[in-house]
């Protein structure tokens, strides 16, 4: 896994907050957004749907909608405007528990 993209320049004296990203345990800091916490430990948030590249957010003000990622329970969050909470289980792709088109076709 690529190392973190972001660099902390200030405000390092905050409580540690545990979270899971793609099954691995990590720590962010209290007050981090989901985007900050994830990009401190890896380089990207998700795979682009319409191109070969990966994505890591773009506007950070809730306008571009580039940074939506999944949680283990299937609910998505906009990473730049969602505060990190202890125990969050975040995923860069659709979680395994999510119904797929092929399952749907089999049932039909």
């Amino acid at each position, binding site marked *: 896994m*690529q190392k973190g*993209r*972001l*660099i*902390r*320049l*200030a*405000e*390092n*004296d*905050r409580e540690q907050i545990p979270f899971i990203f793609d099954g691995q345990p990590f720590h962010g800091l*209290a*007050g*981090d*957004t989901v985007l*900050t916490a994830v990009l*401190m430990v890896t*380089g*990207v*948030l998700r795979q*682009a*749907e*319409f*191109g070969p*590249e*990966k*994505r*890591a*957010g*773009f*506007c*950070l*003000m*809730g*306008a*571009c*909608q*580039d940074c*939506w990622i999944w949680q283990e329970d299937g*609910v*998505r969050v906009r990473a730049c*405007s969602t*505060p990190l909470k202890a125990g969050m289980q975040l995923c860069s792709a659709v979680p395994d528990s999510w119904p797929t088109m092929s399952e749907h076709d089999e049932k039909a």
Partner: protein
Amino acid sequence: MKQILIVGAGPAGIRAAKIFVDAGLKPIVVDEAERAGGQIYRRPPKGFGRSAKELYGSEAVKAVALHQIFDKMVQKNQVSYYPSCSVVALANGLAHVLGPDGVFQCPYDKLIIATGATDRLVPVPGWQAPGVYSLGAAQIALKAQGVALGQRIVLAGAGPLLVLLAHQLIKAGATLEAVLDTSPRTAQMRGVFDMFFSRPITTLRGIWMRLGIAHYYRGAVTLREITTDENGPVAVSWLDRRGRLHQSKCDMVGLGWHLRADTHLADLAGARFKRDKQFSQWLPETDMFGRAAEDVYLAGDGLRIVGADGAECAGSLAAIGCLQDMALTAPDPSSYLGRLKRMMRFAKGIATAFPWPEKMIRTLPNETVLCRCEGVTVGQLRETTDWSGPEANRAKSLGRVGMGRCQGRYCQLAGAEIVAAAANLPVVKVGRLRSQPPARPAPISAYVDDDS
């Protein structure tokens, strides 16, 4: 009592709320942020330690004053405040508001829209890579999270934020590789006149900042390409004003060409638009009080790009206009009007100095991604134009540029240039994308009751 809804709690929204509260009314304020202040006076989450001076520099006093005004109104229960909430749709005196607990409906009699602006973007080959951000994003990351978005940073574009951000990043200890300004020197010389005569101190401060980053700064640049590998940017290629090719190595690129008014809700509320030559974008038509349609008032950068000081004036004026229209006692608008006119002259200077790089866009190579949301290329839009005809909305329907989840915020101005160039027309002839609800993606679950 008439119900007033203010959308946005930046400088304009806060000043509008204050005028209403002083007149004895209790407006509803809906704001997307966790804490009021807007973008330029954005507040970090609670528990962060940097001082206002560190966060806002020369504007610290204004920022703190604005935050205190709003916090006091909330404390005294003088406003109904909905933070972390977005208006996603509105019509006929009813707004749909998306918050952490789902969507609720908010009826209103009078509407003040102060939704601000986003970075105005120009596609650059490679800009879809992870690690390419808007300039605003880099400033938000620094201010509200205390982080730099990369180890080696190249900033490119035009406008006041380019130099300000470079200055702020260096001060905070980030590693800057280059600051690439696409504005020609002649434009900058023309613009600085209006800037200096309306706001000499601010202008001198800008020039001083520019001198401070002279080591990194390159003017009159044409951007060619962001070279990337699977992890993101590795270099930016650019031409200097003599046409010589250069490369700046990096792992993060910040892009932005001044600002684009976020007019989505204004459009849904019935505002009329005019292509503004100076700001190279479609802006709502209003009087000096922001009257845009019956019972609809606009203020701040979502109406015209005048910056935070101008937004404070415009917010006050919108509320004053609204009070006048309700036949209520309103404060004297003359001092706000005078100040706003001065800010507008300054804004005109800025727009002249840092122009929209029309030629750079019109000559983009076909393979350049134009729409970041859905990966539609410049070449695909050129092809679409052949059979859609040179009209923005038809090109959108058939070619999908502007239909992705950002709703055209970041592609439609460049898209219009591509369509216009393909038909050899001035960009005004291509028209403006009609806004559609929802203004933000809304999950279906937000509209479903738990009981059902």
